[in-house]
């Protein structure tokens, strides 16, 4: 099943990896993107996943295994279904009446579309950062504390807000104006605030839907550095239409092509230097898309 996507590597090493993580010594690649990364456990797996919007098929028979605490990039031309896939993972597509799903999407082995799965609880494990910064029209502090409050988490709000803003590399810029409106921040700061907001509730996975596409190059580079750091603690799945960005920040890359087909999934280096499929090579080298 996974032969075409090149992910069958996980099994031999996953036991070792999970033992390491129990001991707290898991080494998350410093050489990210610069060679084959030690495989870890699969966090998210799709099996024969189809997604339809009314009669239009947005994803076709997608099979993929996304490894823990790595950055997995989804690339492909507009309309290829990469965002649809991302939104299927935390069931944000439930909010679209017309969306219909077939096949399986497993989070830690559990199909998230099973009857007994509560999408609200699922989204507490799988956070999301959107294409356009979307802070709430509230103070900076309240934005970060929002998830803690709706999830009724018994934590020291002050401390979690500070830590989250530090992890999102925003603390130094906003520590003296936590009670000011988040809407007064620049676009890049707002997006880092949204990342802080997502990590404040301590999810396992962070989904990012083109998080830098609305930002200028400097803000983009800050976000990219941040994503690199986040993979120490979280599994990051990022959709991007920027191939250089995928090459810079990801460990694994999935290439979706028109029609909602996942054509190739492998280590990022392999995808960019020696892809299996001619169509992927054509896309990577800019012959289309």
């Amino acid at each position, binding site marked *: 099943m996974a032969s075409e996507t090149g992910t069958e590597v996980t099994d031999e090493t996953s036991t070792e990896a999970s033992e390491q993580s129990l001991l707290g010594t898991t080494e998350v690649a410093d050489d990210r993107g610069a060679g084959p990364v030690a495989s870890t456990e699969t966090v998210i797996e799709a099996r024969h996943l189809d997604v339809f919007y009314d009669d239009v098929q947005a994803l076709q028979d997608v099979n993929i295994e996304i490894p823990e605490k790595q950055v997995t990039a989804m690339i492909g031309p507009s309309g290829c279904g990469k965002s649809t896939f991302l939104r299927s993972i*935390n069931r*944000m597509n439930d*909010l679209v*009446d017309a969306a219909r799903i077939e096949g399986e999407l497993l989070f830690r082995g559990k199909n998230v579309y099973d009857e007994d799965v509560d999408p*609200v*609880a699922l*989204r*507490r494990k799988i*956070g*999301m950062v*959107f294409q*356009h910064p*979307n*802070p*709430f*029209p*509230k103070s900076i502090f309240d934005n970060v504390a*929002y*998830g803690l*409050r*709706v*999830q009724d988490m018994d934590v020291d709000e002050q401390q979690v807000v500070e830590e989250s803003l530090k992890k999102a590399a925003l603390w130094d810029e906003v520590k003296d104006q936590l009670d000011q409106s988040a*809407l007064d921040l620049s676009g890049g700061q707002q997006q880092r605030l*949204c990342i802080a*907001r*997502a990590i404040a*509730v301590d999810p396992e996975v962070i989904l990012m839907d083109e998080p830098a596409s609305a930002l200028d190059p400097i803000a983009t580079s800050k976000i990219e550095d941040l994503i690199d750091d986040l993979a120490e603690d979280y599994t990051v799945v990022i959709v991007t239409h920027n191939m250089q960005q995928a090459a810079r920040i990801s460990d694994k890359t999935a290439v979706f092509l028109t029609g909602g087909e996942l054509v190739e999934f492998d280590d990022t280096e392999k995808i960019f230097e020696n892809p299996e499929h001619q169509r992927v090579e054509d896309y990577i080298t800019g012959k289309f898309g």
Partner: protein
Amino acid sequence: MSSETRDIVTDETNASRTAKEQTYRAIFLACGILSVLTTVAIIATLFSDALTFWSEVPIEDFLLGTNWSPQIEGSYGVLPLVSATLLITFGSAVVALPIGVLTAIYLSEYASDRTRSILKPTLEILAGVPTVVYGFFALVYVTPALGTIFPSISTFNALSASLVVGIMIIPMVSSISEDAMSAVPDSLRQASYGLGATKFEVSTTVVVPAAISGIFSSFILALSRAIGETMIVTIAAGSNARLIDPLDPFSAFLNSVEPMTAAMINIGKSDVDPGSLTYKSLFAIGLTLFAITFVMNVVSNLVAERYREEYE
């Protein structure tokens, strides 16, 4: 002059087109001026007649007087009327504001497109029912029904009028609030869902706060409508001009009261001499009513301005 440039200079065809344009402009302007002039004329007559009234009855006696008995005692204290208006406005607000906002939340956040497409127009029909129908509905159905709960209720009473005025303004609250909630960008809802919020939390912690200025505006507009409402209160609330005791709203609601609008109707349809003091008092009440709704509109604009959320 070349043939090309001849086309663009003022000649007969171009001149007649310009003349037509000016005529159209004048017609549109005249229509605009008409409504402004009418407003000015109404305010001017209100003021001039109210001022003649106040030259005979001191304005402080009018505004602070606690007895309204124009024809029998010649007593023109407007407070009983104002207190009755406020009582009914308060009663209708208790009915309409919560129900209106909750309806708006349902329509905007919970209802499917299909449900909304049926429910919203139905609610708007409620707004199109003539108020005289509401008035008799209050008198003929609501009051007897209330009588089974409160046997001491009068035939004409503030409670029945309040409930029905409240029902009448629900669509105003729900419709304007729903527009404000629908205008809240979806990106904010998604952000909230993405953080593990339930639909109820998304509605209460994101949508309602972001739409608060529109919700306030709907309140003010609906309350202005309740204050100015005439038919329902004239038919159902009665004409007993009593000063409401704020410490005993219960008995106030169960008895007959006379709001400002009802008092104006009662004077207008009685056979008072058009030059008489009683007749002129009509304008003084009218001006007071206008002042109240005007202040509410100003407050509404200030509130909307103050709480306007900018999303980007």
